[in-house]
């Protein structure tokens, strides 16, 4: 039982590490996902092709392989960055493919007439997308984006298996110090539950305020 009280700072660091990783990677995933989704619905063929390749390749890549490639591959080009940045890159790019698909199917739920009306007002593609379609699509993608971000938080555990400043990674330190391993995992599991529940609570609020009535 004293696994938690004795090592509160270790768990705390790990917990904050996971939260930090999740927040930064989520931001990257949302930005990249948004970009790729607009590529995939763009009128220019080469943009669409690029978006499609991005999504298809990343969705079919095992995240462990991506971590392995980013973590040990990028340094070979003379890039010197802390591990955390590499982890955010890998997690963010991976999740962006799923976010992109969620956004794209959201865009597809907006009735055609909306776009036609916008264009008849003389709006360009960019204006139509950002001022008319996306604000409406946003309402129907809250739930799928939320579950993708929950998946991201859970996937951050892989970063912990490679390096230490993350919730799952704390088990290594505590195991070496000889603490009860079962209890260590109970607290780690609780930490993840708190994070995933928090994300789903946030998205429930968003859903209630802006979501499409079902």
């Amino acid at each position, binding site marked *: 039982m004293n696994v938690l009280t004795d090592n509160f700072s270790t768990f705390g660091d790990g917990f904050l590490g996971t939260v930090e990783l999740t927040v930064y990677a989520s931001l990257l995933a949302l930005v990249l996902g948004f970009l790729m989704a607009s590529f995939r619905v763009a009128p220019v063929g080469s943009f669409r092709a690029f978006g499609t390749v991005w999504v298809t390749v990343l969705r079919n890549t095992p995240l462990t392989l991506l971590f*392995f490639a980013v973590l040990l591959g990028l340094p070979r*080009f003379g890039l010197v960055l802390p591990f955390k940045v590499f982890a955010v890159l890998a997690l963010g790019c991976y999740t962006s493919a799923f976010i992109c698909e969620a956004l794209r199917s959201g*865009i597809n*739920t907006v009735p055609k007439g909306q*776009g036609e009306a916008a264009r008849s007002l003389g709006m360009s593609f960019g204006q139509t997308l950002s001022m008319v379609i996306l604000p409406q699509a946003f309402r129907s993608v809250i739930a799928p984006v939320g579950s993708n971000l929950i998946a991201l938080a859970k996937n951050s555990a892989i970063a912990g298996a490679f390096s230490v400043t993350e919730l799952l990674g704390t088990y290594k330190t505590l195991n070496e110090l000889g603490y009860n391993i079962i209890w260590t995992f109970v607290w780690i599991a609780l930490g993840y539950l708190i994070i995933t529940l928090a994300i789903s609570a946030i998205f429930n609020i968003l859903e209630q305020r802006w979501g499409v009535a079902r």
Partner: protein
Amino acid sequence: MKALAHDSTALYDIPGPKTVRRHKLYGVLSTLAVLALVAWILYLLFDTEQFTATKWSPFEYEGIQELLLRGLGNTLKAFAISAVLALALGGLLAMGRLSDHRPVRWVATLLVEFFRAMPVLVMIFFVFVALKVQPLPALVVGLTLYNGSVLAEVFRSGVNSMERGQKEAAYALGMRKTQVMSHVLVPQALRAMLPAIISQLVVALKDTSLGFLITYEEFLHAGKLIASNLDYDLPFIPVVMVISPIYIGMCMLLSWFAQWVSKRQRRSPKTEAAEVAPAEPGTLLPGR
């Protein structure tokens, strides 16, 4: 999915001659930009000496090829075992969730929600480190629990999405609940669920690479063994170039199979009575 009918045309009209020209220009420019990026990456690869003979020659040796094949075999072995077990567990848990007995339903719901909320890697590590199990069984247990729970939800929503008339008609014929399930609902739902099930199996296949982190000697592990060998001048990039196409290719094949099945089903009259959403990554959001 219904929205697919009007696709992306909601965003732009059929372009006129001027716009076509402009789009062509954009197309050429962006293609050039992508080509420049590729060229730059190739330059970097050459510049950092990733294509030297020392880094690539290990792949010429039979010993190394066999090592990679052994790894690939282990990956597929872990995948096959976990896929079968996950399907079985999924069926069992779905049965639990559809049960008429409240305690059974509660237990099944609790298990499904818990295993979906936990990172699969935490479960694998728990079994491996805390319960001191061998790498392969630890990996299989983790993958089975997670994918089994997700599949349970797929099964349940598949059965629940069947038109009420099917069930009512079956009961009207005097069938018992088990008969209604096994003779009427499940056979129809199963066909409709097939794409969602295969998509989830892609997740399981991808996640077998987590075995790498618990020293299971799978494909990525074999790659790392070669990549981190100082004798071969750390052929890291070559290893990634060899193993990622194989990994991605395997997953893509399975994904495409799922899409193909789903396309076939959309035309099939046998699945009209059910509509199944693709499996979402584990979620706690209600109202799906």
